């Protein structure tokens, strides 16, 4: 594993990984604003699906997104506690996840394209699959994920 790692490290991309409904997802570090605790969420009556609510992150209003719902997973047994903060068009969003994982450093060579038979909704979001020791990590294109959010909200 380490043989090419050092040489390629400069070209390697960092990913923030998180577990959601038994799957591991990875988002490019460059896209992640910060990771924070989901607490004191205010639910917004009449809000579109996919939105858990809003919260205050050091004076900024963050829209907490129900990532499970957006990706078509069943509702979790307990409320999510962690979120990945992503800034988009001047607004801060929090993608709720079940658990945060380590930062993954990956080189393009280690990645494989998303399998053909993946659910269409996922195939639009997942750009590649990274093999890890114990599990597969799905690399997520943040922009496309948000397209999913808007289409869900518009529906």
């Amino acid at each position, binding site marked *: 594993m380490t043989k090419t790692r050092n040489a390629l490290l400069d070209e390697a991309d960092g990913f923030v990984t998180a577990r959601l409904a038994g799957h591991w997802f990875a988002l490019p570090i460059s896209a992640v604003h910060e990771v924070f605790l989901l607490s004191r969420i205010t639910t917004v*009556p009449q809000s579109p699906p996919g939105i858990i609510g*809003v919260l*205050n992150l050091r004076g900024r209003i963050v829209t907490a997104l129900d990532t499970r719902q957006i990706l078509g997973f069943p509702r979790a047994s307990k409320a999510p506690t962690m979120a990945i903060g992503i800034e988009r068009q001047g607004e801060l969003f929090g993608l709720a996840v079940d658990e945060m994982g380590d930062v993954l450093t990956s080189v393009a060579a280690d990645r494989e394209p998303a399998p053909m038979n993946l659910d269409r909704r996922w195939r639009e979001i997942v750009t590649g699959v990274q093999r890890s020791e114990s599990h597969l990590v799905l690399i997520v294109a943040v922009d496309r994920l948000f397209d999913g959010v808007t289409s869900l*909200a518009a529906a």
Partner: protein
Amino acid sequence: MDGIDELLAEFITDTQEALEQVDVRLVELEHEPEPASMLNELFRLMHTIKGTCGFLGLPRMAGLAHHAETLMDRLRNGEPVTNDAIDAMLHVVDRLKYLLGAIESSGGTEPEGNDESIILALQQAGSDASAEVLHGPDDAQPEVAVEEEAAADAPAPAAPEPAAAPAPAPKAEAKPAPKPAPKPAPKPAAKADKPEEKASGGESESSSIRVSVETLEHLMTVVSELVLTRNELTEIMRNEERTSHKLALQRLSTVTGELQQAVMSTRMQPIGNAWRKLPRIVRDVAANLGKTIELEMNGAQTELDRQVLESIKDPLMHMVRNAADHGLEIPSERLAAGKPEKGHIKLNAYHEGGQILVEIGDDGRGLNVDRIKAKAVERGIATQEDADRMTNEQIFSFIFEPGFSTAAQVTSVSGRGVGMDVVQSNVERIGGSIDVRSVQGQGSVFTLKIPLTLAILRALIVGVDGEDFAIPQTSVDELLKVEPGGAHSIQLIKDSPVLRSRDRLLPIVDLRTVLQLPTATDENGMPRTADESTEGFVMVIRARGLRFGMLVDSVLRTEEIVVKPLPHALRNIEHFSGSTILGDGRVIMIVDPNGVRSASATPSEASMSAAAQEEEDAIAAEDKQLLLMFRAATQNRKALPISLITRLEDVCLADADQSEGQWHIQYNNELIPLVWFGGPPDPDSKERKPLLVMSDDGKSMGLLVDEIVDIVDDVVDVQIPSEQPGILGSAIIGGAHAEVIDVGYFLGLASNHWFDPHQRVKVDETVKILLVDDSPFFRNLVAPVVRAAGFEPVVCSSGAQALDKLQAGLHPKVIVTDVDMPEMDGFEFAAAARKIDRLKSVPLVALTGMLTDDAIAKAREGGFSDYISKLDRNGLIDSLREFTKPDAQREKAA
């Protein structure tokens, strides 16, 4: 005058700025190897200055700018950039600055003098072959000594302009060598100008600077965050004992407050800025329409947030234009009305209760309540019934409906029905409101209530269903505690919660229901409504002319909140106008009263609650009944017991089916027959009309009317019988005359599938029925029923008249007569009729108001075949059918 000053001040600031740029660019130009874009910019700057000066009537400045522009044009078209040229330009800049200063100190007039020397230099610059070429086809000497002055400026030396000016002859242009001035004049000249400039124009430079709006916005955001952090800290420290921290916090708090104030003040602008264009608009409108109008503006210095100012600029303009156009009459009308010929529009701005109030008043004709009402009904915004119940204030609020215009004529200025709705939405978008007061013939006053700033507002923090919400305090008129047995309690009228407050019935909107909070429904998923047992608080809210109560569980406190825009994904929720962060760090939603109002109240609901109110009253007075008042065919009010009406619908005749003279309309998945008063309606009419759906014996029919007027609770006492079909008679209802409708008549029409009793009924004319009744009311009640049943009624108003007809050869199949008649009563008539031989077998039916055993016995004795109550329409029809059937058979047999 004020307006001009503002304009001038703006011009001076703008031009000073532009000249600074020209200055800098000119200097840069000297070292610029690729001057094209720079020359373009210079050209543009001079062009702008020229334009504005021309507009403001400043010929000297305009002239200078013009020649400078010409030079720039020549240079950018390829002429070499020479030192001369740059110098000449710099002199122009200096001269323009001087003139600008003089204009500012004189209040708008240019000083005397001329600038021919400078102009000459401009004209000659670049054309002088001997001049040093800075950039040109061959850029040999980029570092030309600047000391080598372009001498052309010599004739314009020091300050006393007028004296120096005449020096260059008009022929100057012709001079081949423009270097006649040996003295190094320009420098001193420029210097000499300087002090003057400082003295006059310098003032504005030092006292204010221009900062980009973006910077201010950012500052505001940061301060808002600071305020929030301070609030949060205060919240945390509330339970803290250590005084040392408290002191520091106190200081922080004060400083933060001051900072907030200071930053806010940078955003403040006098409202006069938004008024600047108004005199011109008024002048134009006046000239256009041949009016004379005086515009008075008070409180122009009242300051408000620039963002707010921007938002109300257009609405203000629109309203002033409206006042000038629709509000004020033409001079002849004014004189006729005993008013001065000159119309008056008054603007007034002032602070009140943390808000800015802007009034736009005129002394014109005022709003025409009737016309607005009629228009509202015509446009289907309100039913006549609703409109008649409304206060003038509510009726005026219709002018804010989209596309609503009562202007009889569309003028070039206004009256196209666009505007007031836009005005309202603009004002509401910034959390303001608009009200109108008007007295017909005396004028109107529009009052804008606008927040001082958009960023911070005072709000009530309320709790519903365990959630907190903020409600802008400016929209809350009153706060009432409701509890069973308390001073105020909620009452239910047909499932609609209402509250009595100051003799007015307030519809209650339960925030829980509007927002569909978890407790809006009970465990079975059924909607839960507030009722008598509800405890909580009702905020009396006025939104768009409608007062309603917003029910919440608790009112926690008032707080100054910093408004945060909602995330995009949540902006479509009309109930909220924004969000805010509370002192404890939680985010809560700011409820938008206008959004709640439009989300919860539909016109039909409004009328429902009106009807419900009447119904409630009816319970109190049981001998009364609820009557729906409406108009149809005529202007008379018509009344119909509400108990007979199944539903009120609003239909468009174009949706009706018409076949064989029979009209049907779709209602509840079935086609029901339509009936109406008077002549048949226009089948192609797109107009929507109220339809009273009535059901009887499982059959429904719809009575088409023109408008619903009211719902009245009264005792029906028919006093004057009516001549008209379908109308029982007249009664005093609700203190005024009204016609009571004969539902049976219409039911008869519909159930027999006849439409217009006078035209389309297939009446068997051989089956004549003689009707004798002295009362026109009952004659008209019975005759149509008879006709509706397919018989030909022959109507007589007295026994004598009937006998005449019979003797003249009339052979009715049945004779129906009233028994109580003057002169010849029913019995006498019957006896007389029986004497006519050929009529011996004709059945005689007695009609009477009293149906007693006695009377029946008497009738039998008198030779009557049947005896029927006047009001028993069906009995009569049955009886007639009975008598005509065997009769007809007998005739056939014969």
